[in-house]
């Protein structure tokens, strides 16, 4: 009973905020709705007992990815942030591409969920580990991820690393004439290099060589 009530609360919030991401006129508001969507999805994860996935969703997507989204979006000019989605003729040309992509994702989801429903033996391995009693969600996830799927897991890590290096290489530029602080040089400076103690005689002064 209580479980169902909470499920409907979270899923309603998730769907409404997902619609608001595209519908809201202010880009920053869109990102905040996206964050709300992530949070309610992670609540749904926790409700089905996948507490590890829910927390990772919060940490990775809300705590890191969405912060960077917000970072970029906030840099845009606030006055230009009126999203003329439904009005201008330019942006409506993107609608067919969006429709194609969403149809593909929809059919992929149907294939996965249909397979789960009608061919349960395909998922036997996953079911057998997660249903065993006394083992927490995190343990069973680790046992699958680091044994049967270790290669896939490592490859996905490598792909992320390559993407990161690619982004850095694309944006890296060596600027001329920038003064940089060399910490090693500063720390290893000796007293004899910087300071010289002189005997100053009265009425004669000191000759400082240039």
């Amino acid at each position, binding site marked *: 009973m209580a479980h169902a009530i909470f499920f409907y609360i979270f899923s309603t919030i998730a769907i409404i905020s997902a619609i608001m991401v595209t519908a809201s006129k*202010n880009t*920053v508001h869109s990102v905040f709705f996206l964050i709300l969507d992530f949070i309610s999805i992670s609540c749904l994860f926790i409700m089905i007992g996948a507490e*590890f996935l829910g*927390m990772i969703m919060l*940490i990775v997507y*809300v705590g890191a990815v969405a912060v960077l989204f*917000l*970072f970029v979006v906030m840099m845009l000019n606030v006055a230009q942030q009126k999203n003329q989605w439904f009005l201008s003729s330019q942006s409506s040309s993107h609608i067919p591409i969006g429709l194609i992509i969403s149809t593909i994702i929809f059919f992929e989801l149907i294939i996965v969920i249909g397979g789960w429903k009608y061919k349960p033996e395909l998922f036997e391995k996953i079911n057998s580990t997660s249903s065993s009693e006394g083992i927490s969600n*995190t343990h069973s996830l680790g046992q699958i991820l680091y044994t049967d799927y270790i290669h896939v897991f490592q490859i996905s890590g490598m792909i992320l690393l390559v993407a990161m290096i690619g982004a850095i290489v694309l944006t890296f530029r060596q600027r001329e004439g920038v003064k940089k*602080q060399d910490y090693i040089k500063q720390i290893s400076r000796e007293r004899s290099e910087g300071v010289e103690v002189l005997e100053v005689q009265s009425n004669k002064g000191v000759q400082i060589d240039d």
Partner: protein
Amino acid sequence: MEYLNIIFQEVYKILFLLVPVLVSVAMIVWLDRRIWAFVQKRQGPNVVGPFGLLQSLADALKYIFKEIIIPSSSNKVIFILAPIVTMTLALIAWAVIPFNETQVLANINVGILYLFAVSSLGVYGIIMGGWASNSKYPFLGAIRSAAQMVSYEVSIGIIIINVLLCVGSLNLNDIVLAQQSLWFVIPLFPMFVIFFISALAETNRPPFDLPEAEAELVAGYQTEYSGMMYAMFWLGEYANILLMCALGSILFLGGWLSPIDFYPFDLIPGAVWLIFKIIFLFILFALVKAIVPRYRYDQLMRLGWKIFLPLSLTWVVLTASYLFYFNLLPIN
């Protein structure tokens, strides 16, 4: 009816946790100012109440009766939401802090991940406040703090992995119980130091208080806030600092475990030990504030990404290899 009963019981428990936390936040502000003053040979707040203990209450009263000014060009909904988010996030994290083996509001399996997630959400209050003010200084402060908190979260996460390797569980009570023979501060001492410094950066404390550096940015993201909304930012910030101290004492100083575990001393409840450890860490926080000058921004980023991240990653490899080689890995 039974639902109502459950709800009342939970609300009672939550109040029993939150009221002491809020009172201790007020006390800790006083302690912070006193320590800061003593280091600089001043008196600090010593007028209101005995030793000035009621100074924070007087301040709070002043904030309550001040006018709340909302800038006309600000984004009003987000402007009002920002301090609420900061305060809420700082308080909900206390739900998983164990004060004893049984005295914990929510003994969840992924307690440490929950704490980490909540502390990583803390950046939103600052970004929202800074952006919604629609003003230069708050915006610069918000951008600085977003970059700073995301950078230092990475090293805190890896330090947590170090501890978790030795524990084998994400439950905070298990982490405390794993330290019964040896507190993790001894084998993982370098990690404790890095955790302490990263916690300073994560909570925007000096010497890493660049988001609110008063010489450059007036008050950073708080510039446009006044009255109770400012006070909520302030309370949230100090509740976050206390939370980081609690996290540090659970991860490294044995949480509610007693350092002297024989007859007359084992009557002292575990909660008292935890509070002592939190206060000890907080005194260190306050001393750092008084002693160390502020970092420059590029120095801060260099420290986070080029020193702490490689160091803590190396330590993960070291810990894992040591545990693997001597067959000490906690497998259950």
